[in-house]
């Protein structure tokens, strides 16, 4: 049997990689990808907790499914925003989208 902590550490690692990606990627779509990694880490954590701490209840999986729905919505709206930005400003590099500067 795999210990719970392994899953948790894996999720933490995935989450941190996601954070790095969000903070360091230049391309907005790249940032979105990293965001998906973070969401996946969260779901992974939820599922692991469900399996080890409450397998008789469905709430853990339920929570994960709701996060799935949120992730789908986030991806759709996020990509639509990126396409819209691309159409207006001709770029998807997050650095160049900086009208709020100074």
């Amino acid at each position: 049997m795999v210990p719970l902590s392994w899953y948790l550490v894996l999720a933490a690692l995935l989450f941190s990689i996601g954070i790095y990606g969000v903070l360091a990627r230049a391309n907005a779509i790249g940032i979105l990808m990293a965001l998906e990694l973070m969401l996946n880490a969260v779901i992974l954590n939820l599922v692991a907790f469900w399996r080890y701490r409450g397998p008789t209840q469905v709430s853990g999986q339920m929570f994960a499914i709701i996060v799935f729905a949120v992730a789908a919505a986030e991806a759709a709206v996020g990509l639509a925003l990126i396409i819209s930005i691309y159409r207006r400003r001709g770029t998807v590099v997050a650095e160049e989208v900086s009208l709020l500067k100074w």
Partner: protein
Amino acid sequence: MSAQQIVFLVTAGVTVISAALVVTVRNLIHAGLWLVMTLAAVAAIYVQLEADFLAVVQVILYIGAIAILIIFSVMLTRRVMADTGPQRIPQWPLAAVVALVVFGGLAYLLVQVPWPLAPDVDVSDTVLALGEAFVDPDRFVIPFEVATILLLVALVGSISLALPERESD
């Protein structure tokens, strides 16, 4: 070390390596493909956690829809073959440090907490229970409806966002 543990370590390794490649490779299409790889590996981990339904949903939703959408928009928003410019911003060392600290903190916290574990039971068939819990008015029908409304709003919102502005012609 049991066979299960070996399988886990292999899938976890694939997950982490491809995730790392997602955030580091220069070519965004490749990043998207590595993202697919990561998601598939996570689905495999769900299988090991005996969450079959979630694994399949992960494949159908993340790989079948989200990842493809992401790759699609990469293609849409770039002059496709050309790799222009650096793919990370100057603050990346700082980001790496922060990510490391986050990982350290999270891992430390998650490992050192003595999680009380439930007794192991057979969870092979949860689909029916999930389905019933979803439409049970006493349990999850409200979150379910809220999620559907969220999806509908996201659908309408993304269409109206991405729709090109109508020019007066």
